[in-house]
């Protein structure tokens, strides 16, 4: 048996011998690292989602009805919606935009609603297809862009309902029904993947909301101060609406995110400290218990370095086991939290695996520093006598 194999054999035997203590330490370490992992994954995937949504938001201005309430968060990640739907008057908006040429021609009208598709409710978005095509050049369309009688369907929805380009959809709303032909499947990685896009006029008719809109997205050429001025001007012209810069919307969700992250960080710090203290306590008592064994090993001629190595290896091994278990548990917790609280799936982030293991090993080593010094100093004669 080689020295290295023997070394690990002894370490594993020693850990296996003290089942209770080992289990306790692994549990504590796993708890700490699972907490760090889960908090990290949750905050990281939320951050990424928010950033992604903002990036995908081609427009830089958005007009919504005043009482419609802004969705906090954006796209697929809803923190909540405050008020009932209200509508913009399409004519009023168009007049306002004519008076403010700086708004430019890159804009799209949206009417969000729900229609029944084969008995189920689906979310639909009424748009003017050429407008949205110009505004969202990154949309990947499988199939072709539709004309006024066609529809685009989001990739998630298409997959779930097994709808292919060319299929006819029969949709019915409170004020009437329609049959449209799907010409393309859109995938954006965002909210659009779960929507059906219809022609604005057709949807207005089906919902009985002629001349009504829920939102107007504008891509103005202006930036910074100019954009703010433009938003202010539009706001003056549109009494019953809110004109927001997308940056503002983003800022709301970002600041909320920052607060949540800070809270998470605090909790993590407290738990990690507590875990570190309990690791230290458990390790010290274990070393105290094993004084005679350490004395014996030293009397047999082990150098202080060799003994230290043996005990450090035990700590590190515990740390690794705790870290691996912690990553698994932490990922599960993160999935649960993001699903129940934020209604989105957590990202799979393998980068947190080494982080979890490092946290756990670090805790194990820091916790065992004191005991290791005691091991290093231990006098074989005294410990063998049982002092």
């Amino acid at each position: 048996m080689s020295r290295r194999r023997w070394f690990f054999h002894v370490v594993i035997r020693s850990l296996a011998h003290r089942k209770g203590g080992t289990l306790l330490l692994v549990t504590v370490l796993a708890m700490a690292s699972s907490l760090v992992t889960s908090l990290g994954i949750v905050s990281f995937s939320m951050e990424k989602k928010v950033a992604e949504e903002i990036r995908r938001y081609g427009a830089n201005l958005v007009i919504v009805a005043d009482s419609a309430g802004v969705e906090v968060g954006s796209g697929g990640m809803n923190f909540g919606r405050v008020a009932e739907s209200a509508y913009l008057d399409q004519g009023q908006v168009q007049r306002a935009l004519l008076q403010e040429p700086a708004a430019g021609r890159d804009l799209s009208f949206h009417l969000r609603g729900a229609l029944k598709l084969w008995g189920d409710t689906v979310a639909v978005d009424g748009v003017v297809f050429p407008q949205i095509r110009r505004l969202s050049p990154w949309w990947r369309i499988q199939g072709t862009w539709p004309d006024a009688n066609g529809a685009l369907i989001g990739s998630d929805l298409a997959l779930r309902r097994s709808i292919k380009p060319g299929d006819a959809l029969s949709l019915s709303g409170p004020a009437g029904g329609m049959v449209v032909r799907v010409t393309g499947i859109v995938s954006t990685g965002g909210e659009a993947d779960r929507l059906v896009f219809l022609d604005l006029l057709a949807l207005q008719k089906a919902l009985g909301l002629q001349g009504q809109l829920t939102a107007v997205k504008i891509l103005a050429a202006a930036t910074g101060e100019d954009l703010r001025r433009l938003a202010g001007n539009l706001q003056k012209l549109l009494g019953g609406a809110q004109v927001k810069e997308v940056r503002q919307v983003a800022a709301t969700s970002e600041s909320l995110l920052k607060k949540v992250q800070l809270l998470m960080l605090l909790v993590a710090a407290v738990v990690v400290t507590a875990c570190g203290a309990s690791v230290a306590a458990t390790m010290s008592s274990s070393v105290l218990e094993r004084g005679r064994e350490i004395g014996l090993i030293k009397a047999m001629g082990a150098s202080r370095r060799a003994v230290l190595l043996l005990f450090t290896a035990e700590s590190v091994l515990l740390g690794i086991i705790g870290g691996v278990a912690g990553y698994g548990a932490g990922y599960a917790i993160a999935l649960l939290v993001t699903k129940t609280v934020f209604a989105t799936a957590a990202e799979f982030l393998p980068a947190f695996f080494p982080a979890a293991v490092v946290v756990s090993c670090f805790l194990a080593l820091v916790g065992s520093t004191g005991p290791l010094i005691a091991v290093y100093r231990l006098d074989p004669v005294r410990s063998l006598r049982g002092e």
Partner: protein
Amino acid sequence: MPVESGTCIIETAGLTKRYGDICALAPLDLQVSEGEWLTVMGHSGSGKSTLLNLLGGLDRPTAGRLLVGGEDLLAFSEDHLARFRREAVGIIFQQHHLIPYLTALENVMMAQYFHSVPDQAEARQALERVGLGKRLANRPGELSGGEQQRVCIARAIINSPKLLLGDELTGNLDHKSTRLVMELLKELHEEEHFTLVLVTHNQEVAGWGGRTLFMDDGKLVKDLRHERKGDDPS
């Protein structure tokens, strides 16, 4: 046959050990020849265990000179002393200290590991030699006192030390086990030619050696050379 070559393996001059005010070992002058079987007798607290710890490099003397195998232990650094322990001496303890989570075989291999590399076949041979060929895979908890002591002996001789030290090695054994252990030691002593120093308060054990030191209150009282028991099988 007692092996008495002329060279000294242990040589002390004015060897002293104090614990605070207590003088555990008064200045001691001692010469032990290579291959000798020496027994140190005395009451508890007479300084005999202290002497053994000093000889085994487990402890450092307060004053005096201590040469083992021609090397001055006082000049050794802590790590050098550890090397001395693993290469030059074998120690058998009273309470047959074994590592509880390792089997008999692994306990012997542990000594090999610290010395150089573990060698399973050699460790098994050593255990077979002390009559434990069938108890290789047993943990110390599953072995009797006498068996545990024999594992300790196998472990102590595995690295072929020049000097074997035993501290009350029959203290916890009944008469029969004691006899078995002593016979084993005698056999090994004849084959391996190590120098044996036993500390005991058991008159019977002392009889197995060829020379007995009597100690009291840290001082050497009597140095006696005598006939060895077991030379005449009884």
